[in-house]
């Protein structure tokens, strides 16, 4: 498949506007500005594009919730890239920033926003600077600012840097953060489409989602819809990390089987070892084992087997991996990142972490696994936002497949691997 999202990955100098223009850049924007906003929304709906941030919500549908006549609207690009195992958006922003900007301009035009923010995690300073430079270039060339390409459409794009909070990837926490508050999620309803940034209608889209737009406009909805499965089509970036020969980013059709990604593209398990488990979409996604490797990597196929595509961050673990430790690392992460707002997540994730920690350190007691399961039941579905659910799904995934490893730890006060 011809790459559209990562075609410039690793290419020196590809990030400049001149380079981007030489590859046909900003043609899609020119074309889009000649269309009616509604037609673009319809086109994106027809393409079947689903959000690449994790939830897989149909992008065109999300846009169509924005009230047409609202005088002030916003687009926010979610570049928080916080889900452990995920490093795809960074690839786009560092090597093809104009692709994102063009996508944002198209989306802004479609929903009628004149201001857009890129919410980028604070650690990505290099990428933030790249984007900032690219924004200046785009202003100079007339792709941003007042009266873009003489069409009367105006758009300003600003970079807002996060500063160390996973929760700010959650869309309403992200809005709070831009408004200068602690990044805690807001209650929904009202949904951001009606009352988002500064209380105005707002669309929040992931970097990769927005980066798909120029290609959709250029080549048409049918082209996009024809790639991968019917219900979740298009190209998708998979970031593979962990115990593989060739970790890295791979742009493949949605629905590529997990086995193909791990064994063909990423070169298989390092040093010829055996695969033990693989997380298909960032640590919130329940892990899979050997027997599930045939699963096509798309939203619906993974949901069907009780996991999720999430961000497409594939983490591979070989036979030497201790799953109690894996669980501990994941729980430590969630407890650290729980924003503190709601009871079950704040107290629950910390409690889970402490139990897994003591099992890992040889201080577990019989009944601990059952306690973990019971706490998971008490957290799941009761938290304010999906962060708490993510923690539970991850832990349940480990417990479901590797329960005996926990028991072994508890009984023998040490690891079985």
């Amino acid at each position, binding site marked *: 498949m011809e790459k559209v999202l990562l075609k410039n990955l690793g290419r020196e100098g590809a990030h400049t506007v001149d380079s981007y223009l030489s590859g046909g850049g900003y043609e899609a924007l020119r074309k889009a500005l000649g269309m009616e906003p509604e037609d673009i929304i319809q086109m994106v709906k027809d393409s079947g594009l689903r959000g690449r941030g994790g939830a897989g919500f149909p992008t065109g549908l999300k846009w169509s919730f924005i009230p047409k006549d609202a005088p002030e609207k916003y687009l926010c690009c979610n570049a928080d890239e916080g889900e452990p195992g995920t490093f795809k958006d960074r690839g786009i922003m560092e090597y093809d920033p104009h692709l994102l900007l063009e996508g944002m301009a198209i989306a802004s035009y479609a929903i009628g926003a004149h201001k857009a923010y890129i919410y980028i995690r604070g650690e990505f300073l290099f990428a933030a600077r790249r984007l900032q430079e690219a924004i200046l270039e785009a202003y100079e060339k007339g792709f941003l600012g007042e009266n873009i390409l003489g069409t009367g459409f105006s758009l300003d794009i600003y970079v807002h840097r996060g500063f160390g*909070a996973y929760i700010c990837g959650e869309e309403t926490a992200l809005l709070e953060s831009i408004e200068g508050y*602690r990044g805690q999620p807001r*209650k929904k309803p009202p949904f951001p489409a009606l009352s988002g940034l500064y209380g105005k209608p707002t669309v929040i889209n992931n970097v990769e989602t927005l980066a798909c737009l120029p290609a959709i406009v250029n080549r048409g909805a049918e082209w996009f819809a024809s790639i991968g499965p019917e219900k979740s089509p298009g190209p998708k970036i998979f970031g593979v990390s962990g115990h593989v020969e060739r970790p890295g980013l791979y742009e493949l059709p949605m629905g590529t089987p997990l086995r193909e990604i791990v064994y063909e593209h990423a070169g298989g398990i390092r040093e010829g070892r055996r695969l033990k488990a693989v997380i298909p979409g960032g640590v919130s996604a329940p892990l899979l084992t050997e027997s599930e490797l045939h699963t096509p990597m798309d939203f619906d196929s993974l949901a069907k087997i009780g996991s999720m595509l999430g961000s497409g961050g594939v983490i591979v673990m070989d036979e030497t991996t201790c799953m109690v430790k894996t669980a501990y690392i994941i729980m430590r992460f969630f*407890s*650290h*990142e*729980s*924003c*503190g*707002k*709601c*009871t*079950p997540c*704040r*107290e*629950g*994730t*910390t*409690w889970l972490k*402490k*139990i897994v920690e*003591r099992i890992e350190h040889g201080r577990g007691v019989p009944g601990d696994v059952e*306690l973990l399961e019971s706490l998971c039941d*008490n957290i799941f*579905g*009761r*938290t*304010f936002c999906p962060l708490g659910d993510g923690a539970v799904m991850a832990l349940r995934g480990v417990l479901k497949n590797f329960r005996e490893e926990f028991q072994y730890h508890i009984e023998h006060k040490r690891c079985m691997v």
Partner: protein
Amino acid sequence: MTTGLVTLKINGREVTVREGTLILDAAKEAGFDIPTFCYQANLSGLGSCRMCLVEIEGQRKLQPSCITPVMPDMNVFTETDTVKMTRSAMLEFLLSNHPLDCPVCDKGGECELQDLVYKHGPRKGRFAEDKVRHHDKDYILSPVIVKNANRCVQCMRCVRVCKEVVGRGVLGAVGRGVHQEETSFLRTRLDCDHCGMCIEVCPVGSFMRLPYRYRARPWDLVSARSVCGYCATGCRLTLERRGDTVVRAIANPEDGFNRKLLCARGRFGYDVMNSEERIKTPLVKERDGSFRPVSWDRALELMKEAILRAGPERAAGVASATLTNEELYLFQKFMRKVVGTANMDSTSRWSAESSLKFMEAAGIRGGGTSVYQCAESDVVVVLGGQLSEENPVTDYILRYINGARRNTLVIASPRGMKLDSSAQLSVRTVPATTGAFIAALLKALVEKKEVSMEGMEAVKGLTVEELSGVCGVNADDIRWIAARLLTAGSVGVLAGTDMLRYDDGAEELALLVRLLENTVRDVRVLPLLDRANQRGAWDMGVHPYLEPGYRPAQRRGHDVHGIVELADSGGLGFLYLLGEDVLGLYPDRAGVERALSRVGFLVVQDSFMTGSAPMANLVLPMAMYGEKHGTMTNQEGRVQRMEAVRRPEGEVRTPLETIGRAGNLIEKDFPVVRPGDVWKEIQKQVPGYGEVRGMEAFKGASADQVAELKPSFSYAVPERAEGEFWLLTGNHLFHGARLSQHSGILRELLGGCVVEIGSTAAQRLGVGEGDMVEVEARGYRERLPVRIREGTPDGVAFMPENFDGKDANRFFDKDRVVSTVRIRPYKKQGE
């Protein structure tokens, strides 16, 4: 606004509620209690504690009933196994990091966490890890607030109430996840309202009262329902004593319109009752000027002799507008029937004439208007005064309603105030020009919309610009307000005591109200009064021109001006100051001092030695709130009962008993009575005072008109020389009436008398917060620390009223509208 009805099912039971009702409230109506932590009526919805989760048919997940409004045909379940299991689970989570130090926690016995665990909680703990500890020792946040973060359940009520209701926002949630702690900036001492709302709303022992610390357990306390005596907002509170010491005042959310709200004065000013400085026995002045204790019998005998000696023409009395209706009623009856005079007043600060106008314009003699109705109007206008300090809880109510409804709030007053930050527009008027400001508004209204109405002809000759020049408010701003008023469906006007003080603006206000009634229709006027029972005092006829129920007096007497003048001319043989400190309040202190010294026989009955008391021939002790039964009428016209939490100590007596016995001594058929008897008489004599069921009722209207209002429409800017300040006075947040000086807690909060100026003035003078300045006028000088008040313009200064030893009234001329003072930085020698 149209509010439709919604019918839904809760646990199979059908209920119909107003659209927008929360499931939580609908369930309550259907008879099902849902436990909560983070929910708090009047605060923005949070939905974070997850205690209130319920099942809704068709919804995959449990939903927080505290932020989810009802929908038609919803099918809600609040008592399923899943819901019950969830409640228990949330409590288990909350307990996991809770220290369980209940035996040493002040909240023990009235803790929401304890109660809910008892009702819904797990019977057994499974948490075996180390708990998160924020600190080892409780830390002090203010003279009234102590903090234990370890016990916090993260409901954020404290942070929200501070910001959304109190308007300070000095508390924040610091840290993330389990490390989150609700506290002040870097845990430093708070500079805030010290209202203790954070304590009141805290469900656990995380915010606690410092003065109450380790003093009592809830079950040791005897409590009584009372009314706060510090301003006419008239908050209801519950006083609690242990033994004979009053240890706490709390707002009972189930009882009283103010629900949980109280300000620092209400919540912490109760300790005046315990003060060692109280007058404990009757005292008679000896020839050498010293006081000697006497028996009540002897004291009343002396009083009788003086009254008889003076005769009706040469007798007078001033009763404080903080007494109960019963006391005030009996006072005027005593003065009229026994002493035989109408020389009486309920204030030392304004004239009978100006009060008549105010009663008419602000609807005082009319029926009650609830502060909520007024605050919920589409446009709310605050006129004059310093609401945020004089009537703090009125400020709190206005703020949270404005925050929730986003209605238009407009403020016009001479000084900056905290409520400014909630206002869409806040303008500064030159002191004593409220009349000019309203006249400008009237003109701007008729510019926009033709109205033919009696009294409006004279407005034709005015211009907005000219009037704007007098009151100092930008003409565009005036027109903006007028435009808002014309498009409003309802208007609430809050009229401050400036109108009374300066005899300014009441007539214009009356015209404005009439005009709005013709255009907008729905107009609600709420007087803002600083004395707790000012409205009651007028209703009861403690007025030289008015008898109970606003009946014109057969023969008019002297108001406080006349009384002081009469005294000064040597024409007063007997003066009874009942809880009122004329010397401390009346302008031109030296003049009053001279006048009082010429009174034949001065009786001062009070709880403390006031400024006037040392000048008295006879001093009588007086019971105060918490020590007596009776009713009070707040600024809304809400008649509220209060109960005694304890008996007055020793020889201290209620005014009711004093007056009854004194009267009886002179006139055999003047009855010695109990409050209940007087109340029955009030109901007969004062129209509007009907049945009070339970603790409160709104009063109805009195029929008689008390004044013809016709503005003269001639205005001038009060004079002031270059560089001088107009001096204003009144209540302070921590100092209302006179009592607060004897509350150790409030004294600590205030830290002494201050002079308040705006930041531009401070810059001009080169002084900062706390620096000493010298205030000078009329040959008096006073050194005071500066307080900077944002929003107060240069040329306006404020000193709290009635501060012993720092008496502001020295700086006031008796017959000038507004006094002026010079203020200069004070440098110590050698600096």
